[in-house]
């Protein structure tokens, strides 16, 4: 992606909803600096009370895994079914656990 010198950088926006949840990625926008990114994020992504807190991160600062690494990153956990509680049979007479 080429960015000309006159183009404002791209920011990724994360918003915390009202129910004590984590910040969640909602989209991106362009802004000259962080302060403006947050102001714009308020206008673009919280026009209907969608959030109580905004994070803005310049897109170039985000490191992301690539789709080609999917196998080596996630397959090792496939054969570790014992990490899920349902792996263990608990007799009914023990009750809820």
């Amino acid at each position, binding site marked *: 992606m080429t960015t000309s010198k006159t183009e404002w950088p791209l920011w990724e926006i994360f918003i915390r909803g009202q129910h004590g949840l984590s910040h969640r990625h909602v*989209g991106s926008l362009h802004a000259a600096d962080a302060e403006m990114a947050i102001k714009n994020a308020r*206008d*673009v992504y919280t026009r209907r009370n969608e959030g109580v807190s905004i994070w803005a991160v310049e897109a170039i600062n985000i490191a992301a895994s690539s789709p080609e690494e999917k196998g080596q990153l996630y397959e090792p956990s496939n054969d570790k079914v014992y990490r899920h509680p349902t792996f263990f049979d608990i007799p009914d007479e023990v009750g809820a656990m």
Partner: protein
Amino acid sequence: MYAQMIKSTGQGVKSLDEMEPEERAFQERINAGGKIEPKDWMPEGYRKNLIRQIGQHAHSEIVGQLPEGNWITRAPTLERKAILLAKVQDEAGHGLYLYCAAETLGVTRDQMTRDLLSGKMKYSSIFNYPTLTWADMGAVGWLVDGAAIMNQVPLQRTSYGPYARAMVRICKEESFHQRQGFDIMMKMANGTPAQHKMAQDALNRFWYPSLMMFGPSDAESVHSAQSMAWKIKMNSNDELRQKFVDLTAPQAEYLGLTIPDDKLKFNEETGHYDFSEPDWDEFFDVLRGNGPCNTERLAARNKAWEDGRWVREGLLAHAEKKRSAKMAAE
């Protein structure tokens, strides 16, 4: 629709057997209802087609602010003015969500803007019609946003993740737009005889241009067949147009307004309304740039871009200065 006459590869849809393994895996994922994300492999045609489609959709949202912005200062009450402002602000937001989605495909926002301003990229034909009276604000919300919803609701399931997610946000907000339009129409249609006449006049002028929004019949189009195989187009143009007429005709009846079409009639056999096609020569003429407001709309966007130049450059310079000062202080 907001994206009309999008040309894809035009070579017809390949069967899975004709595809290289990469493309085959891609198509199988789409067939299974999976999503394609920005960093995933995708055929060049898919990428290009999506940039054109999402870009045109975004431009339509932005240019679509102009016919409504025309009435902000002349809204009949303060409440109507506040509502219209909020609606036009939403359209700017919709444009932004869509530009962001297009940018994930490797095109910059500035490039798309330049292509709009030069006339290389299009926006929906509907926004080249003027809004002459306050009743037009009702007709635009009711009919134009109503027609847009027909297309945007199924696009929430489109195969490209960022586009689908933008559509989810847009659809949530769009029903406010349509309802506020219908609300204006109700008020006008049930108002004084002069107001009723204005409502009827707005319907007369916006009915066929709204039908044109879906584009001409694409039952035979190879472009549409490819887009549908890629799930970046979910329904044929005729299908959506019929759905729109079926939903809108009873609403017009409720308003006590007459849709300007002698042939419009519910067909007991098909369970759908029969209706007249719009004038497709007019549609192509508007797309070629000869609609009533093409020149005015593009001039307004170009002026906004030029007038805003010093702000864009100034804020960038200011951010740069602040960054340098901060670094010097550290």
